[in-house]
């Protein structure tokens, strides 16, 4: 646990309750804190990393609930599975896959969470479309992510080191929210917003947002 984890919204006691090494300081918010998770719910975490958000969710949904962590790197899946074994979690499954093509059945999930990962995807529309597909009608999402305010120069957009560092792949804030809406979600709300001076330029700045939204109750497509 480091200052970074606390500064983005994790409670120290929550972090102490998960296996050491599950949190690697890669988040930009705490999506489970506003997810209002209930016992028995099925959760999917996009880009589960070392598993910290899955383990926090697993504690809240209990043994009648279930948490699926999806990550596209073998090394992260291996690490998360080791952490699950260390923590004795029986209600968590880590699956290798891309968030643009989730290895999850349609309309089986109560809530999708994600922490600082969607900005890494080449096609955010596909990600939100997949979130919509796997959610049950009336299901919801709670995601923390990086967005920008202003306009990022195209030359910087093509910097792959910074894309992988959660900067240059980020959408402009309103474009991000429109992308969510265009996927079919409703009652979209920005629950928290934190501005960073990191990488700030006269043209643009970086902000982390935690956003919630719902799939309509008649939303079967």
């Amino acid at each position, binding site marked *: 646990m480091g200052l970074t984890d606390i500064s*983005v919204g994790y409670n120290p006691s929550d972090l102490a309750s998960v296996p050491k090494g599950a949190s690697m300081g890669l988040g930009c918010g705490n999506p489970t804190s506003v997810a209002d998770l209930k016992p028995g719910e099925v959760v999917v975490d996009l880009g589960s990393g070392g598993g910290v958000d899955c383990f926090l969710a697993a504690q809240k949904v209990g043994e009648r609930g279930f948490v699926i962590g999806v990550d596209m790197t073998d090394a992260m899946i291996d*690490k998360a599975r080791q952490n699950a074994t260390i923590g004795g979690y029986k209600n968590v499954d880590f699956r290798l896959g891309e968030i643009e093509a989730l290895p999850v059945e349609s309309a089986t999930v109560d809530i999708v969470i994600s922490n600082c990962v969607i900005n890494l995807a*080449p096609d955010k529309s596909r990600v939100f479309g997949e979130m919509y597909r796997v959610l049950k009608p009336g299901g919801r999402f709670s995601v923390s992510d990086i967005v920008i305010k202003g306009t990022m120069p195209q030359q910087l957009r*093509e910097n792959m080191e910074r894309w992988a560092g959660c900067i240059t792949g980020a959408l402009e804030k309103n474009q991000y*929210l429109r992308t969510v*809406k265009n996927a079919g979600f409703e009652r979209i709300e920005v629950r928290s917003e934190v501005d960073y*001076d990191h990488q700030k330029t006269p043209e643009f700045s970086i902000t982390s947002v935690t*956003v919630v*939204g719902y799939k309509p109750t008649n939303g079967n497509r």
Partner: protein
Amino acid sequence: MTDRQTILESVKSRYSAIAKAGAPPAAAPTASLAIPLAVAPTANQRWD
């Protein structure tokens, strides 16, 4: 325009290395390493 495969390979490479190291490199240009300035007073904005 950056192609999809280049993005995916860059992301996989970085996060595979982080998984093996257990933490991101200290000097990495990662947004999550930034220091929050302030929580914006406009939180809880309804957007749609």
